[in-house]
């Protein structure tokens, strides 16, 4: 190319700008959903605990989606988060029942460790045996769910098993902000800082953008992949504990299909499904949007049966739009070079 490359700033259409400012459009969408639902049914926001539910319900999805997003960033996927979540809910509830002497905080920590071990199994198999994460976690999705059904059977966590203090933690908050949302925000801030600012965090992006190059560059990709699955498992466990604190119950079906919600939240929040790009607070907003939509639909008289279809549609739409804008940008860049 002899021609001088013109450096005119690429003109963006409004739609593209809005889409690229993903977080802003998500905030707008969340506000629209809340506004529309509140106008249709004022009790959605203005009844006893309406605002509280609005703020605390998304906490569970935010935490699980952040774990999922970290895995997707490295060009892997974790389909087992829903099953891990369900198992952990019962594990902790059962622990509170059978060993009431243990402080609740220890119960919770044991639950997170339990979930991390389940994630560790995924990580070992994916990272050190070079088996696609899709296949491994599809296997553990069913294996863990099956273990849950075998272990729990028709049993379920009863509200009286769960200490009042822990249930209060799920209900209360400080200055009107539920504790659960504070937990989710803390997880978001920590992992957002870790991924954006820490060296190891940047290495995860490097693995996702080009795994082969990451190996050649000298990154310990296996170890890092292994760690992402442990994080994903542990955060799914935190999700299960949040579930327990909100509902104080749980059978063998808790978290079924939750992996789709987590993946949807991640891709809606701007994580590229092929890895290598995405921001944690985008994911948190994606999760907030999805969870709010989930609680708004029944209020708007859309049967909750349709929720799964909407989640699926949002996944397909988000990845398609991402791809279309990528192609448009690529074409424009090529044109700019040709000039």
């Amino acid at each position, binding site marked *: 190319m002899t021609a001088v490359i013109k450096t005119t700033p690429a003109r963006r259409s409004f739609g593209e700008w809005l889409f690229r400012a993903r977080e802003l459009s998500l905030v707008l969408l969340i506000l629209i959903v809340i506004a529309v639902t509140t106008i249709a049914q004022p009790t959605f926001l203005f009844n006893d605990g309406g605002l509280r539910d609005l703020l605390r319900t998304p906490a569970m999805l935010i935490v699980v989606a952040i774990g999922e997003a970290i895995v997707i960033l490295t060009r892997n996927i974790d389909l087992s988060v829903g099953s891990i979540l369900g198992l952990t809910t019962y594990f902790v509830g059962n622990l509170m029942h059978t060993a009431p002497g243990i402080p609740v905080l220890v119960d919770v920590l044991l639950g997170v460790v339990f979930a991390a071990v389940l994630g560790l199994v995924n990580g070992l198999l994916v990272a050190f045996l070079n088996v696609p994460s899709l296949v491994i976690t599809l*296997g553990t999705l069913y294996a863990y769910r099956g273990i849950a059904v075998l272990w729990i059977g028709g049993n379920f966590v009863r509200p009286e098993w769960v200490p009042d203090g822990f249930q209060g933690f799920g209900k209360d908050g400080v200055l009107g902000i539920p504790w659960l949302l504070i937990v989710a925000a803390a997880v978001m801030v920590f992992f957002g800082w870790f991924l954006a600012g820490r060296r190891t965090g940047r290495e995860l992006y490097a693995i996702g953008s080009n795994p082969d190059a990451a190996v050649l560059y000298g990154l310990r990709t296996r170890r890092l992949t292994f760690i992402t699955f442990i994080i994903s498992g542990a955060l799914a466990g935190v999700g299960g504990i949040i579930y327990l604190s909100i509902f104080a119950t749980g059978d063998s079906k808790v978290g079924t299909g939750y992996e789709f919600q987590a993946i949807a939240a991640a891709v809606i929040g701007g994580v590229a499904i092929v890895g290598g790009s995405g921001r944690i607070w985008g994911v948190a907003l994606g999760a907030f949007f999805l969870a709010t939509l989930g609680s708004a639909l029944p209020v708007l008289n859309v049967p909750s049966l349709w*929720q799964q*279809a909407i989640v699926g549609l949002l996944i397909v739409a988000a990845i398609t739009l991402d791809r279309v804008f990528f192609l448009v940008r690529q074409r424009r860049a090529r044109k700019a070079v040709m000039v």
Partner: protein
Amino acid sequence: MTATTGQAAPPSRYLLHDKPLWRRLLLRPEAALILALVLVVVLSIVLVPHYLRPNANYTFSTLLLNAIPILFLLLPLMLIIVTGDIDLSVGSVLGLSSATVGLAVQAGIPLLVAAVMGVLVGAMAGVINGVLVTVVGLPSLAVTIGTLALFRGIAVGLLGTTAITDFPPEITKFFSGSIPGTPIPWQLLFWIVLAIVFGVLLHLTPFGRGIFAIGRSIETATFSGVNVNRTRLILFVLSGLVAGLAGVFFTLQYSNAIGSNGNGFELRAVTAIVLGGVSIWGGRGTLIGAIVGGLFIAALNKSLQVFGVGDDAIYVITGVALIVSVVIASIAGFISRRRKVQASVA
């Protein structure tokens, strides 16, 4: 040593075999799996009480009837996996087709027309997957995870919690029945025709060679003149079509259209295929291996069922079987690579 003695220079390395045919056949992964299949059946007959009750025909016909939906789904899915793609939405497409048939019959549409509608809905689902993968250029894994949720969601949304069960009894009797005096279900005859078509398509046509070529390397396949995207699109449409057909058969076999029909079948189909020696990385495998894999899982399920282990344990076992089979494939690949390196060094 076989027939090449006497020739000064062997024409091709690939024609040289240092072992006789029967040993090469025995060393194939399919052979081990067939052996395992026979072993499971024989051991069950010997060890599991009531395995052959009320009679052997009943046992084997129910075994095959349980296997048939998976056997249908795995035919096109195996071809897709050979190209290096994946279709996780097959179970949901089956459910969507089942819901379509059920609602159509409930609305008074003749069964044959309803069945055609079910198949067409399946094909349309396949077109959606295929277009998103080939035209838009998205990874098949991501697309079909999305449509797995989407199609299942539509099926559940359409049917709600209702189950449609009033299908003509003589038809459902045919689909759940076997050829008198044999354990062979009538449905299996349809399937055999389809399996032969897919086997010929994969192993004996240029189109099939193209499928393997895509799995080895998309670039090489493109430069060899394979129309990569057309092939992939056709396979996704075929997958939807066959899943739609399986949905119609499934509905009539169980005389039941509910939203959860075919839930988790993608796991069973992928497990069968990987177990049958098909490489999950693409480019390698035989259709017969995948079919034997499907039969093996069905036989295992049947034995466990008769033994009194519940459906939930079967999920655990299928999930573990999937993991174990890919782990074994991974280790075997590792060993054979190391042997090749050692051989080339020596």
